């Protein structure tokens, strides 16, 4: 009896164990690359304020820049989240994916604004995505702002 139950749920168990490790490894690598890029782009500031540059003197060029990223929630975290949502409380397991998607989107936005002195009026929007099976399986984040080029440092 116990054996039968074990065999029946073995694929689920294997999937949980495997995705636990793959999720952790991928997360760590992603954060490593995010931190590296953030360091690289730390000179290019971005702000959610837009009014300050209105009329801006010395602005030679300005254009819209965007960045987007889709980050998935691996099976393990999704499963834990499913149980968690029944009992309530802070769902920490989804926060990592959200955070990574947002930061990656901002970094890609900065990447497309090479040479700019600042990015102003940055807005971020995200949508949960679901595909394959109808469940929450990831998050897409899109960040956009106005890259401002000045001949003098702000």
């Amino acid at each position: 009896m116990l054996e039968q139950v074990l065999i029946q749920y073995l694929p689920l168990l294997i999937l949980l164990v495997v995705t636990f490790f793959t999720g952790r490894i991928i997360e760590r690598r992603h954060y490593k690359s995010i931190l590296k890029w953030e360091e690289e782009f730390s000179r290019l500031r971005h702000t959610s304020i837009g009014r300050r540059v209105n009329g801006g003197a010395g602005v030679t060029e300005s254009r819209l820049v965007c960045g987007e990223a889709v980050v998935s929630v691996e099976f393990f975290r999704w499963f834990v989240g499913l149980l968690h949502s029944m009992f309530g409380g802070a769902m920490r397991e989804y926060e990592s994916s959200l955070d990574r998607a947002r930061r990656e989107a901002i970094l890609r936005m900065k990447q497309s604004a090479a040479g700019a002195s600042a990015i102003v009026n940055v807005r971020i929007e995200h949508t949960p995505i679901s595909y394959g099976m109808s469940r929450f399986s990831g998050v897409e984040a899109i960040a956009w702002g106005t890259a401002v080029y000045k001949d003098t440092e702000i």
Partner: protein
Amino acid sequence: MYISNVESIPGKRVVKHHGMVTGSTVRARFFLVDFGQWVKGIFGGELRGYSKLISDTRQQALDRMTAQAKELGANAVVNVRFSTSTVSLGSSELYAYGTAVEVADA
């Protein structure tokens, strides 16, 4: 065509308003890509196939918006906003809207 998401084009002066212009599009990827992304999603990490989808969707929505602005005779679109949603599984909808204006050197 100048595009910005602040209320004017920095360093320029708005001389005429042409009203709101919009561009929206719904796109999806080839079903084999969907399957690949689904498998990738189980193990976690970034879904590059879908990042590209959103990038393409955004570009097309912006193109449609600027085409509309050109038709009105504007040379800039200000205060651009995006709104995204998932219309159906594996597809992405993006709506771009802004105000078409005519700008001149300040």
